[in-house]
Protein backbone atom coordinates (compact mmCIF):
# COMPACT_ATOMS: atom_id res chain seq x y z
CA UNK A 1 0.00 0.00 0.00
CA UNK A 2 1.09 3.56 -0.61
CA UNK A 3 0.36 6.50 1.68
CA UNK A 4 -1.21 9.60 0.10
CA UNK A 5 1.14 12.04 -1.65
CA UNK A 6 0.86 15.22 0.39
CA UNK A 7 2.71 18.38 1.30
CA UNK A 8 2.18 17.71 4.97
CA UNK A 9 5.35 17.47 7.02
CA UNK A 10 6.15 17.23 10.70
CA UNK A 11 6.90 20.97 10.79
CA UNK A 12 3.40 21.80 9.61
CA UNK A 13 1.91 22.41 13.08
CA UNK A 14 4.61 25.04 13.70
CA UNK A 15 4.43 26.73 10.34
CA UNK A 16 0.71 26.75 9.67
CA UNK A 17 -0.81 30.20 9.95
CA UNK A 18 -4.24 30.33 11.55
CA UNK A 19 -7.06 32.79 12.12
CA UNK A 20 -7.80 36.08 10.40
CA UNK A 21 -4.99 38.12 11.87
CA UNK A 22 -4.93 41.62 13.31
CA UNK A 23 -4.11 44.97 11.73
CA UNK A 24 -2.01 47.41 13.71
CA UNK A 25 -1.38 51.05 12.92
CA UNK A 26 1.60 52.03 14.99
CA UNK A 27 1.38 50.61 18.50
CA UNK A 28 -2.39 50.27 18.46
CA UNK A 29 -4.80 47.85 16.85
CA UNK A 30 -6.65 49.38 13.93
CA UNK A 31 -9.89 47.78 15.10
CA UNK A 32 -12.12 44.77 14.78
CA UNK A 33 -12.46 43.16 11.37
CA UNK A 34 -15.00 40.84 9.83
CA UNK A 35 -13.28 38.13 7.89
CA UNK A 36 -9.60 38.06 7.17
CA UNK A 37 -6.92 40.43 6.01
CA UNK A 38 -5.57 40.27 2.49
CA UNK A 39 -2.06 41.25 1.51
CA UNK A 40 -1.12 41.75 -2.10
CA UNK A 41 2.49 42.76 -2.76
CA UNK A 42 1.41 44.11 -6.15
CA UNK A 43 4.41 42.69 -7.97
CA UNK A 44 4.96 42.86 -11.68
CA UNK A 45 7.89 41.33 -13.54
CA UNK A 46 9.10 41.87 -17.05
CA UNK A 47 10.89 39.14 -18.95
CA UNK A 48 12.98 41.00 -21.52
CA UNK A 49 11.80 40.44 -25.07
CA UNK A 50 13.96 39.72 -28.08
CA UNK A 51 13.37 38.56 -31.62
CA UNK A 52 12.73 34.83 -31.77
CA UNK A 53 11.74 34.49 -28.12
CA UNK A 54 9.66 31.38 -27.62
CA UNK A 55 9.25 31.30 -23.82
CA UNK A 56 10.21 33.33 -20.76
CA UNK A 57 13.95 33.02 -20.29
CA UNK A 58 15.80 32.60 -17.03
CA UNK A 59 17.99 35.54 -15.96
CA UNK A 60 16.07 37.94 -18.16
CA UNK A 61 13.53 38.89 -15.51
CA UNK A 62 13.39 42.27 -13.91
CA UNK A 63 11.05 43.23 -11.13
CA UNK A 64 9.22 46.27 -12.44
CA UNK A 65 6.83 47.42 -9.74
CA UNK A 66 5.85 46.60 -6.19
CA UNK A 67 2.66 48.19 -5.00
CA UNK A 68 1.83 46.44 -1.73
CA UNK A 69 -1.66 46.67 -0.35
CA UNK A 70 -3.46 45.37 2.73
CA UNK A 71 -7.21 45.14 2.52
CA UNK A 72 -10.00 43.98 4.77
CA UNK A 73 -13.37 44.87 6.21
CA UNK A 74 -13.42 46.73 9.50
CA UNK A 75 -16.64 46.83 11.53
CA UNK A 76 -16.07 49.88 13.68
CA UNK A 77 -15.63 53.57 13.09
CA UNK A 78 -13.91 55.40 15.93
CA UNK A 79 -12.76 58.97 15.62
CA UNK A 80 -9.23 57.60 15.31
CA UNK A 81 -10.38 55.38 12.47
CA UNK A 82 -11.74 58.42 10.62
CA UNK A 83 -8.34 60.05 10.47
CA UNK A 84 -6.81 56.72 9.48
CA UNK A 85 -9.10 56.15 6.51
CA UNK A 86 -9.26 59.86 5.58
CA UNK A 87 -5.62 60.93 5.48
CA UNK A 88 -5.30 64.55 6.44
CA UNK A 89 -8.88 64.87 7.67
CA UNK A 90 -9.23 67.78 10.04
CA UNK A 91 -11.48 67.33 13.06
CA UNK A 92 -13.13 70.41 14.53
CA UNK A 93 -14.58 70.00 18.01
CA UNK A 94 -17.68 71.79 19.20
CA UNK A 95 -20.84 73.08 17.65
CA UNK A 96 -20.46 72.73 13.93
CA UNK A 97 -22.48 74.67 11.42
CA UNK A 98 -23.84 71.78 9.42
CA UNK A 99 -24.99 70.01 12.55
CA UNK A 100 -26.49 73.15 14.07
CA UNK A 101 -28.46 73.69 10.87
CA UNK A 102 -29.99 70.27 11.33
CA UNK A 103 -31.24 71.19 14.76
CA UNK A 104 -28.88 68.87 16.59
CA UNK A 105 -27.16 69.99 19.72
CA UNK A 106 -24.38 68.90 21.99
CA UNK A 107 -20.69 68.53 21.48
CA UNK A 108 -19.89 67.40 17.98
CA UNK A 109 -16.85 66.63 15.96
CA UNK A 110 -16.85 67.26 12.26
CA UNK A 111 -14.08 65.85 10.13
CA UNK A 112 -13.33 67.72 6.95
CA UNK A 113 -11.58 65.39 4.52
CA UNK A 114 -8.39 66.49 2.86
CA UNK A 115 -8.92 69.08 0.14
CA UNK A 116 -8.42 67.62 -3.33
CA UNK A 117 -5.34 68.93 -5.03
CA UNK A 118 -3.42 69.28 -1.81
CA UNK A 119 -0.14 67.45 -1.44
CA UNK A 120 -0.24 65.29 1.65
CA UNK A 121 2.25 66.00 4.40
CA UNK A 122 4.25 63.46 6.38
CA UNK A 123 1.83 63.45 9.29
CA UNK A 124 -1.03 62.37 7.05
CA UNK A 125 0.51 58.96 6.48
CA UNK A 126 0.09 55.89 8.61
CA UNK A 127 3.32 54.54 10.05
CA UNK A 128 4.30 51.04 11.10
CA UNK A 129 1.22 49.33 9.68
CA UNK A 130 1.30 45.63 10.42
CA UNK A 131 -0.92 42.75 9.41
CA UNK A 132 -0.10 40.09 11.99
CA UNK A 133 -1.04 36.44 11.88
CA UNK A 134 -0.71 33.72 14.51
CA UNK A 135 1.42 30.71 13.65
CA UNK A 136 0.74 27.25 14.93
CA UNK A 137 3.76 27.41 17.24
CA UNK A 138 2.31 30.37 19.14
CA UNK A 139 4.60 32.86 17.42
CA UNK A 140 3.71 35.38 14.74
CA UNK A 141 4.33 36.40 11.16
CA UNK A 142 3.61 39.89 9.93
CA UNK A 143 3.61 42.02 6.83
CA UNK A 144 5.10 45.37 7.79
CA UNK A 145 4.56 48.65 5.98
CA UNK A 146 6.81 51.37 7.33
CA UNK A 147 4.69 54.06 5.75
CA UNK A 148 1.23 53.67 4.28
CA UNK A 149 -1.91 55.39 3.20
CA UNK A 150 -5.54 54.37 3.18
CA UNK A 151 -6.35 55.05 -0.46
CA UNK A 152 -9.80 53.54 -0.67
CA UNK A 153 -12.72 52.76 1.56
CA UNK A 154 -16.46 52.42 1.44
CA UNK A 155 -19.05 52.05 4.16
CA UNK A 156 -21.89 49.56 3.99
CA UNK A 157 -24.49 49.20 6.71
CA UNK A 158 -26.99 46.42 6.96
CA UNK A 159 -29.95 45.42 9.07
CA UNK A 160 -29.14 43.33 12.10
CA UNK A 161 -25.41 43.31 11.59
CA UNK A 162 -22.32 45.39 12.14
CA UNK A 163 -21.29 48.06 9.71
CA UNK A 164 -18.82 46.96 7.05
CA UNK A 165 -16.06 49.33 6.01
CA UNK A 166 -13.94 47.88 3.24
CA UNK A 167 -10.52 49.49 3.38
CA UNK A 168 -7.40 49.35 1.27
CA UNK A 169 -4.12 50.50 2.74
CA UNK A 170 -1.25 50.92 0.29
CA UNK A 171 2.40 51.06 1.24
CA UNK A 172 4.41 54.17 0.51
CA UNK A 173 8.19 54.14 0.24
CA UNK A 174 9.62 56.48 2.86
CA UNK A 175 13.06 57.26 1.51
CA UNK A 176 14.00 59.05 4.73
CA UNK A 177 14.13 55.70 6.55
CA UNK A 178 17.21 53.48 6.58
CA UNK A 179 16.63 50.44 4.43
CA UNK A 180 14.14 52.19 2.21
CA UNK A 181 16.32 54.93 0.72
CA UNK A 182 16.61 53.52 -2.79
CA UNK A 183 13.65 54.15 -5.05
CA UNK A 184 13.70 50.46 -5.94
CA UNK A 185 13.57 49.29 -2.34
CA UNK A 186 10.54 47.26 -1.39
CA UNK A 187 8.22 49.35 0.80
CA UNK A 188 7.26 46.29 2.84
CA UNK A 189 8.82 43.53 4.88
CA UNK A 190 7.73 40.05 5.90
CA UNK A 191 8.83 39.43 9.46
CA UNK A 192 8.70 36.66 12.05
CA UNK A 193 8.12 37.60 15.67
CA UNK A 194 8.19 35.71 18.94
CA UNK A 195 5.69 38.08 20.55
CA UNK A 196 3.43 40.95 19.58
Amino acid at each position, binding site marked *: *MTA*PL*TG*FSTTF*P*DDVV*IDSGVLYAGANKFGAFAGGLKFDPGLTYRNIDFDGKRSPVKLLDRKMTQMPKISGTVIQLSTTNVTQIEPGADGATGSVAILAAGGWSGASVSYAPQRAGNLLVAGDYLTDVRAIWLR*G*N*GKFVQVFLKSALCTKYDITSQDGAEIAIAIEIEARLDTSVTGYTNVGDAPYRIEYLDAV
Partner: protein
Amino acid sequence: MTLPKYVVPSSLTLPSTASTTQIYGTLRKHLIDYVSPSTDTLAGFVGTRIWVRAAPADPVFPYLTLRLDRTSLPAYNGYRETAILEVQGVGKPDSQLPLVESAMDIVDQAMTSLTARSSGLIVGRGRTRQTVPQLTDPADSSVVAVVANYELYLWPVVLTSRA
Protein backbone atom coordinates in the same frame (compact mmCIF):
# COMPACT_ATOMS: atom_id res chain seq x y z
CA MET B 1 3.48 5.03 17.98
CA THR B 2 2.07 2.92 20.78
CA LEU B 3 -1.63 3.28 21.25
CA PRO B 4 -3.04 3.17 24.77
CA LYS B 5 -4.84 -0.08 25.53
CA TYR B 6 -5.88 0.69 29.07
CA VAL B 7 -6.36 4.06 30.69
CA VAL B 8 -5.41 4.33 34.32
CA PRO B 9 -4.30 7.48 36.13
CA SER B 10 -1.11 8.93 34.59
CA SER B 11 -1.03 6.28 31.86
CA LEU B 12 -1.52 8.74 29.02
CA THR B 13 1.16 10.91 27.46
CA LEU B 14 -0.40 14.36 27.24
CA PRO B 15 -0.79 16.57 25.35
CA SER B 16 -0.98 14.35 22.34
CA THR B 17 -3.12 13.72 19.29
CA ALA B 18 -1.61 10.32 18.63
CA SER B 19 -4.84 8.55 19.51
CA THR B 20 -8.46 9.36 20.10
CA THR B 21 -8.04 8.57 23.79
CA GLN B 22 -5.15 11.02 23.99
CA ILE B 23 -7.15 13.68 22.15
CA TYR B 24 -9.84 13.35 24.80
CA GLY B 25 -7.18 13.52 27.48
CA THR B 26 -5.60 16.59 25.89
CA LEU B 27 -8.91 18.43 25.72
CA ARG B 28 -9.76 17.45 29.28
CA LYS B 29 -6.36 18.61 30.53
CA HIS B 30 -6.77 21.91 28.68
CA LEU B 31 -10.08 22.46 30.43
CA ILE B 32 -8.63 21.62 33.83
CA ASP B 33 -5.55 23.81 33.32
CA TYR B 34 -7.37 26.83 31.91
CA VAL B 35 -7.36 29.94 34.12
CA SER B 36 -9.79 32.71 33.19
CA PRO B 37 -8.80 36.39 33.20
CA SER B 38 -10.62 36.61 36.55
CA THR B 39 -8.46 33.66 37.76
CA ASP B 40 -11.40 31.25 37.82
CA THR B 41 -10.79 27.61 37.00
CA LEU B 42 -13.11 24.70 36.45
CA ALA B 43 -11.74 23.16 39.64
CA GLY B 44 -13.74 25.72 41.58
CA PHE B 45 -16.96 24.49 39.97
CA VAL B 46 -16.65 20.83 39.02
CA GLY B 47 -13.37 19.77 40.58
CA THR B 48 -11.84 17.20 38.23
CA ARG B 49 -15.24 15.70 37.44
CA ILE B 50 -14.87 15.91 33.67
CA TRP B 51 -15.86 12.59 32.17
CA VAL B 52 -15.75 11.18 28.67
CA ARG B 53 -19.16 10.26 27.26
CA ALA B 54 -20.93 9.81 30.60
CA ALA B 55 -20.40 10.22 34.30
CA PRO B 56 -19.95 7.12 36.45
CA ALA B 57 -22.86 5.76 38.44
CA ASP B 58 -24.01 7.83 41.40
CA PRO B 59 -22.05 10.89 40.31
CA VAL B 60 -21.23 13.93 42.38
CA PHE B 61 -22.85 17.02 40.88
CA PRO B 62 -22.09 19.17 39.06
CA TYR B 63 -19.95 17.50 36.44
CA LEU B 64 -19.04 17.79 32.78
CA THR B 65 -19.03 15.19 30.04
CA LEU B 66 -17.13 15.31 26.75
CA ARG B 67 -18.06 13.70 23.48
CA LEU B 68 -16.45 14.12 20.06
CA ASP B 69 -17.93 13.90 16.59
CA ARG B 70 -15.10 13.92 14.07
CA THR B 71 -15.01 14.26 10.30
CA SER B 72 -12.13 14.20 7.86
CA LEU B 73 -12.54 14.85 4.17
CA PRO B 74 -10.67 13.63 1.10
CA ALA B 75 -9.82 17.25 0.22
CA TYR B 76 -6.99 17.06 2.75
CA ASN B 77 -6.22 13.41 2.11
CA GLY B 78 -7.95 12.78 5.39
CA TYR B 79 -5.15 14.51 7.31
CA ARG B 80 -7.25 17.43 8.51
CA GLU B 81 -10.37 16.84 10.50
CA THR B 82 -13.12 18.99 11.82
CA ALA B 83 -14.75 18.02 15.04
CA ILE B 84 -17.60 18.98 17.26
CA LEU B 85 -16.80 18.65 20.92
CA GLU B 86 -20.04 18.32 22.83
CA VAL B 87 -19.70 19.39 26.45
CA GLN B 88 -22.56 18.75 28.81
CA GLY B 89 -22.63 20.47 32.15
CA VAL B 90 -24.97 18.69 34.52
CA GLY B 91 -26.10 19.75 37.99
CA LYS B 92 -28.53 18.58 40.66
CA PRO B 93 -30.54 20.02 42.39
CA ASP B 94 -31.73 22.85 40.18
CA SER B 95 -30.12 25.41 42.48
CA GLN B 96 -26.86 24.33 40.81
CA LEU B 97 -27.88 25.93 37.53
CA PRO B 98 -25.81 29.11 38.14
CA LEU B 99 -22.88 26.87 39.04
CA VAL B 100 -23.26 24.91 35.83
CA GLU B 101 -23.70 28.04 33.70
CA SER B 102 -20.60 29.57 35.27
CA ALA B 103 -18.60 26.41 34.67
CA MET B 104 -19.71 26.43 31.05
CA ASP B 105 -18.61 30.07 30.75
CA ILE B 106 -15.11 28.89 31.60
CA VAL B 107 -15.43 26.05 29.11
CA ASP B 108 -16.50 28.62 26.51
CA GLN B 109 -13.39 30.67 27.13
CA ALA B 110 -11.08 27.67 27.19
CA MET B 111 -12.41 26.01 24.06
CA THR B 112 -12.76 29.11 21.89
CA SER B 113 -9.19 30.18 22.61
CA LEU B 114 -7.62 26.77 22.14
CA THR B 115 -4.52 26.51 19.97
CA ALA B 116 -2.65 23.36 20.92
CA ARG B 117 0.32 22.23 18.85
CA SER B 118 2.47 20.20 21.19
CA SER B 119 1.46 17.16 19.20
CA GLY B 120 -0.29 17.75 15.92
CA LEU B 121 -2.58 20.75 15.98
CA ILE B 122 -5.93 21.43 17.63
CA VAL B 123 -7.67 24.77 17.13
CA GLY B 124 -11.01 25.78 18.63
CA ARG B 125 -12.84 29.04 17.98
CA GLY B 126 -16.61 28.70 17.50
CA ARG B 127 -19.44 27.29 19.56
CA THR B 128 -23.17 26.97 20.10
CA ARG B 129 -24.70 26.61 23.56
CA GLN B 130 -28.09 25.82 24.97
CA THR B 131 -29.53 25.62 28.45
CA VAL B 132 -31.62 22.47 28.61
CA PRO B 133 -35.30 23.18 29.39
CA GLN B 134 -36.61 21.93 32.70
CA LEU B 135 -37.32 18.23 32.60
CA THR B 136 -40.72 16.90 33.61
CA ASP B 137 -42.01 13.64 34.96
CA PRO B 138 -40.94 10.85 34.53
CA ALA B 139 -37.58 12.58 34.11
CA ASP B 140 -35.92 14.13 37.14
CA SER B 141 -36.98 17.77 37.17
CA SER B 142 -34.26 18.64 39.66
CA VAL B 143 -31.55 17.96 37.08
CA VAL B 144 -30.23 21.03 35.28
CA ALA B 145 -27.98 20.96 32.25
CA VAL B 146 -26.21 23.11 29.71
CA VAL B 147 -25.08 21.65 26.41
CA ALA B 148 -22.46 23.33 24.26
CA ASN B 149 -20.93 22.28 20.97
CA TYR B 150 -17.45 23.54 20.14
CA GLU B 151 -16.19 23.62 16.58
CA LEU B 152 -12.62 22.38 16.32
CA TYR B 153 -10.23 21.63 13.53
CA LEU B 154 -7.38 19.25 13.99
CA TRP B 155 -4.31 17.91 12.26
CA PRO B 156 -4.02 14.94 14.58
CA VAL B 157 -0.96 12.73 14.61
CA VAL B 158 -3.23 9.71 14.54
CA LEU B 159 -4.22 10.70 10.99
CA THR B 160 -1.07 12.46 9.75
CA SER B 161 1.36 9.69 10.63
CA ARG B 162 -0.11 7.01 8.42
CA ALA B 163 2.30 4.58 6.79
